[in-house]
């Protein structure tokens, strides 16, 4: 699952608005094949989806008053009583989980993490109990909330994803590994009994997106239809894939006429002419293919967490 905007930042500006980054009806999601192709996440593994209906935004504020140099654990899953052994931060912070995962397949929750101002930071681990996602990859400097020096590695501060325009997104699907945030109070707002306390408030904006897998029809929508009894010239520099009904013919630059077999595609070179008979045809040019690839690239790519921890 994706954890921040790095796949998008190459084509967004600092002035980007959060609502431009939120998925809407018609937005695309592509899941890495590293999602296990099994009963749990097989429906998503390696597949591309389109948001099929209007999305629903749910603001979900979470606040904690904690002492300076202390932390709380926010588990976004639907496991109400996590008892995961080997949790590095102990069990006292296990307060139950936040229920931010869909209960059904074919739904993705796009979760914007909006951090209100305060003297705290967040560390992300996927799944629970593992070393944080944002790390240098060197075993000499393993990050972790318990380490007084390396807990700052890859920490996200309120300025990184402010509550008014969050730019840090998490994605949850049914049965995906646990997303765990640890919020660490590094300072304080007020002092009681000689100890500094502070409030860390995160407003999660959960964008509930129903999904439909991309179909051949979606791809075909990029192609150019040719009505019956029409002639189209394949322009210079364009190679086209022609699919047509009975009677569709392609005349090559060498003036050779070839009938297109219904149900099969024919590659027409530059300079060819496509003529339809009584039925229609569609041509998909390389421009369309490029457009398709661009759409694919712009689809929000959701890598499995091991991709992030692996480099």
């Amino acid at each position, binding site marked *: 699952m994706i954890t921040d905007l790095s796949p998008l930042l190459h084509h967004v500006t600092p002035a980007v608005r959060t609502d431009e980054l939120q998925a809407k009806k018609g937005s695309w999601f592509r899941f890495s094949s590293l999602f296990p192709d099994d009963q749990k996440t097989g429906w998503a593994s390696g597949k591309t989806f389109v948001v099929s209906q209007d999305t629903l935004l749910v603001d979900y504020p979470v606040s904690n008053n*904690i002492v300076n140099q202390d932390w709380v654990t926010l588990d976004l899953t639907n496991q109400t009583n996590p008892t995961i052994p080997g949790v590095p*931060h102990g069990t006292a912070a296990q307060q139950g989980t936040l229920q931010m995962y869909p209960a059904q397949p074919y739904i993705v929750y796009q979760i914007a993490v909006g951090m209100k101002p305060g003297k705290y930071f967040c560390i992300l681990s996927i799944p629970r109990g593992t070393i944080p996602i944002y790390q240098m990859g060197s075993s000499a400097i393993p990050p972790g909330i318990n380490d007084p020096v390396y807990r700052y590695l890859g920490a996200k501060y309120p300025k990184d994803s402010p509550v008014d325009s969050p730019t840090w997104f998490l994605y949850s699907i049914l049965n995906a590994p646990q997303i765990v945030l640890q919020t660490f109070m590094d300072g304080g707002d007020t002092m009681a009994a000689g100890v500094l306390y502070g409030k860390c408030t995160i407003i999660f904006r959960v964008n509930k997106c129903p999904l439909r897998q991309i179909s051949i029809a979606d791809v075909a929508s990029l192609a150019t239809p040719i009505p019956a009894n029409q002639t189209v010239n394949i322009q210079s520099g364009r190679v086209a894939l022609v699919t047509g009904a009975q009677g569709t013919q392609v005349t090559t630059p060498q003036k050779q006429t070839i009938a297109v077999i219904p149900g099969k595609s024919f590659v027409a070179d530059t300079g060819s002419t496509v003529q339809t008979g009584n039925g229609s045809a569609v041509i998909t040019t390389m421009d369309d293919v490029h457009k398709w690839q661009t759409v694919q690239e712009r689809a929000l790519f959701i890598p499995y967490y091991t991709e992030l921890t692996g480099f």
Partner: protein
Amino acid sequence: MATARCTANVAVQALFAVPLHMKAKIDAINIDNQGVAAATVQLEDDFTQDVSNLVGAPVARSAFPFQATVPAGISFSADELSVKEIECLGNVGAIANVVQAGTVIIVEYHFE
């Protein structure tokens, strides 16, 4: 910006409650002591510490981020520097060392 008012009392006098997901910033504190005795007034912030790595059960805490002693017959206003960094987390009130209806405490605040 909102305003809350109370008079001096040795028991905490409620001023305002901070919403769960907000913090209160103090904009001004004015103490008009028209009573017969000097009054030492504290701002009290009562909040509950949440369960955390170090704390296994919620704990009630009281912070006193502001204090001033105002002689009788004096009207006192805290300067901006004294209050602008004060942040309150829970139920905010005023507590004094005397019960004196003539000592009026007015706090201006807003939530963030």
